[in-house]
């Protein structure tokens, strides 16, 4: 059963977090071009849609991760607690900064005022990069498991 839960956790991370990372990293460049009138708006909306939908699906990753941790009996380990804190930070960044900023850009492309959208697009490069970095660190923590006897 632990193997099943861990497989679902890793599979969900690849299939659901991957698209969010790719879409959020592509979004700023295309958003700036579209806001300046030099690029099409449809790809920007699609990238936002991918980020939003797969972000909701990615809820499965920490949920099945916790299920795996309970089955493995490692809930109190330092590397796991650190990973959970970093994951929570990444989720907060995604839900409270990245997705709202993307929505602002999408709304501006739909005809609303774009002064805030231009500022939002500029910050998105940084916040999207930090998001990817946070979960990359989590992956390494879960492989190396510092302080545990079972790390690689």
């Amino acid at each position, binding site marked *: 059963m632990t193997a*099943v839960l861990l497989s679902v956790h890793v599979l969900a991370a690849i299939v659901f977090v991957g698209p969010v990372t790719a879409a959020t990293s592509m979004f700023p460049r295309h958003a700036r071009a579209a806001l300046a009138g030099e690029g099409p708006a449809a790809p920007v909306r699609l990238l936002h849609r991918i980020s939003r939908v797969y972000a909701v699906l990615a809820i499965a990753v920490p949920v099945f991760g916790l299920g795996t941790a309970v089955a493995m009996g490692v809930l109190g380990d330092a590397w796991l607690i650190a990973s959970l804190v970093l994951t929570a930070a990444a989720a907060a960044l995604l839900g409270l900064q990245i997705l709202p900023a993307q929505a602002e850009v999408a709304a501006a492309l739909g005809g609303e005022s774009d002064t805030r959208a231009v500022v939002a697009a500029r910050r998105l490069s940084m916040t999207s990069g930090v998001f990817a970095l946070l979960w990359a660190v989590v992956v390494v923590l879960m492989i190396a498991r510092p302080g545990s006897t079972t790390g690689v």
Partner: protein
Amino acid sequence: MLTALRVAAVVEAASLAVLLVNLATVHLPPVTQLAGPMHGCAYLAGIVLALSLPAPPMPSPRRGRALALVPGIGGWLVLRRAELNSP
């Protein structure tokens, strides 16, 4: 987005039913370990979706969304509100 909420509401209620029936009868650990996270996912997804639904399907930007927090049937409660409000 209502379809997503519909899926979350169904999975939330169905997985809870599976968990409770399992608990009351054979109580197999594998059932708990699989249906538990599914129920948790559906519950959390229902809350996130209820918070992010735009105002036209939902009656207002604030009211009714906290219903998603109700365990087991929260997703269904929000879905009902949204469906009653859209033609």
